[in-house]
């Protein structure tokens, strides 16, 4: 990797575009997020926020544009390789392994980056070190007593916590959070907000969030998307004051 002249951004999007047939869900989005930054991505429903995350994480190919992670062009790197390069994400709609126990969900997250995922002859439960790590993560999110329950039997709030725990077990350097508090009660939401703020300061976080209190609490900078395009960019205070943003975003609420 050639050394970049300026301090390299953790994540860079350059004219990222994605078309679905005639619909340009994401259009010419360029943004640069520096290491350790907490960036909010907001915009009305259908603005293209989730699509942008899917382009960054590699779940979906770009129509045009480039994505760089720590200066490295990852535009054509497959999704699972990007995880190995330090990218992590959570899903707006809970996306877990419902037929598996909470512990096994976490162990799968550990296996994702571990060569033992190809081991075929040694029972998984003999991998004490994986389960020890999973138990540690369970303590952190306060789900220790749910360890052996199937994930589909957890409450929505608990599932949202597992969602984040899975992403964190991958040790991401850049973390994409897609509406982590979706469907949570105010108390749960506040707890989760605190947990996100307490994340290691070295982790770069991109946060899509509809709950403005959560956004303003966590991020230092906000990018507003509207109809697939970057519409405004600034500190939370600037964005809050921007009348155009109020019109498209706060106006409709």
């Amino acid at each position, binding site marked *: 990797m050639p050394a970049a002249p300026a301090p390299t951004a953790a994540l860079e999007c350059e004219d990222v575009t994605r078309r679905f047939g005639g619909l340009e869900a994401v259009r010419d989005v360029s943004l640069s997020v520096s290491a350790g930054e907490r960036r909010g991505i907001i915009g009305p429903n259908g603005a293209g926020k989730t699509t942008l995350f899917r382009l960054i994480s590699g*779940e979906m190919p770009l129509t045009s544009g480039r994505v760089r992670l720590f200066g490295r062009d990852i535009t054509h790197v497959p999704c699972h390789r990007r995880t190995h390069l330090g990218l*992590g994400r959570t*899903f707006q709609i809970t996306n877990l392994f419902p*037929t598996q126990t909470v512990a096994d969900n976490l162990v799968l997250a550990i296996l*994702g980056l571990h060569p033992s995922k190809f081991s075929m002859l*040694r029972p*998984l439960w003999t991998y004490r070190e994986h389960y020890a790590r999973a138990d540690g993560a369970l303590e952190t999110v306060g789900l220790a007593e749910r360890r*052996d329950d199937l994930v589909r039997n957890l409450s929505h709030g608990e599932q949202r916590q597992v969602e984040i725990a899975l992403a964190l077990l991958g040790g991401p350097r850049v973390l994409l959070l897609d509406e982590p508090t979706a469907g949570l009660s105010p108390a749960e939401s506040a707890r989760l907000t605190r947990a996100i703020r307490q994340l290691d300061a070295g982790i770069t976080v991109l946060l899509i969030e509809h709950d403005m209190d959560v956004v303003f609490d966590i991020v230092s900078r906000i990018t507003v998307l509207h109809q697939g395009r970057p519409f405004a960019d600034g500190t939370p205070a600037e964005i809050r004051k921007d009348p155009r943003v109020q019109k498209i975003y706060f106006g409709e609420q």
Partner: protein
Amino acid sequence: MTGFRAGRARMAAAVAGIAGLVLLAILPPSLPAYVVIVLTECRIYAMAAASLDLLNGYTGMASLGHAAFFAVGAYTTALLTTRSGASFAVALAASILLAAAASAAVGVLILRASGIYFMMITLSVSMCAWGLAYRWVSLTGGDTGIVSIPRPRLGFVAGGLEFYYATLVLFSVCLTLYLLLVWSPFGKTLVGIRDSESRMRVLGFNVWLHKYLVLVIAGAFAGLAGSLYAYYNGFVGPNTVDLAHAMQFVLMVIVGGPGTLVGPVIGAFIVTLLEKAVSVFTERWVMVLAAVYVVTALWAPRGLLGVLGVVRR
């Protein structure tokens, strides 16, 4: 599957399994010859059905093409034994390798599809295999098939039971390997793929590679079962790979309970025994097969083990 309860369930299953194997080992000398033959057939199908369960139940890849790899094993053994007098070990090894190679080749193609399209493309694999078996007369003997496949001479037990015991040993080895596989980290990744491919990708798994590997492994085991089938049946023809046969494997998995291994093994015994029982009264086995299918799909989608409440899914 961790924790005390799961551990105890595992113990119980292991004890039941070992008891079953011991019974299969000590009973035959006192059983009528016909029963011994049927039990051998049951076990051969059980190996094939359980290998299909790796795809169907564990990975969530509903394959209708498994009979093709079974047939590759069956024809390989039939050809090697009748044309070049290959030994049991050679025929077995060649069948396993060729079936694995066939699924490795076909896998590249069929893994481009998923969901219902995967089912359709695997169905067409079955049909192509049938077409080959039927039309490639110089190799397969066409409709006549390949006849007079000699039973292997193993000479370790007297009284015509040697093939019975050979399949019993291979069956036990297979089951052990299947169990190790589904209990392993790799086995857990298959279940992860079944539950959510997109999540697996984001966690860093090369989902395609895991599917491909399990496809080749399952194909290899189907080839082994097919090889034993050729020996057992003494004849291999296109009916090894016709639609009814392909669906029969799927039915065994579904009847027993997909994603449980034990279920499909039991399912194979049930379906095979049912076929024997039904064919005493009527020629219309395929119709009965279809009826069992419908009943299972409607009232017991998780199979026998689901009905018994063994599966927690």
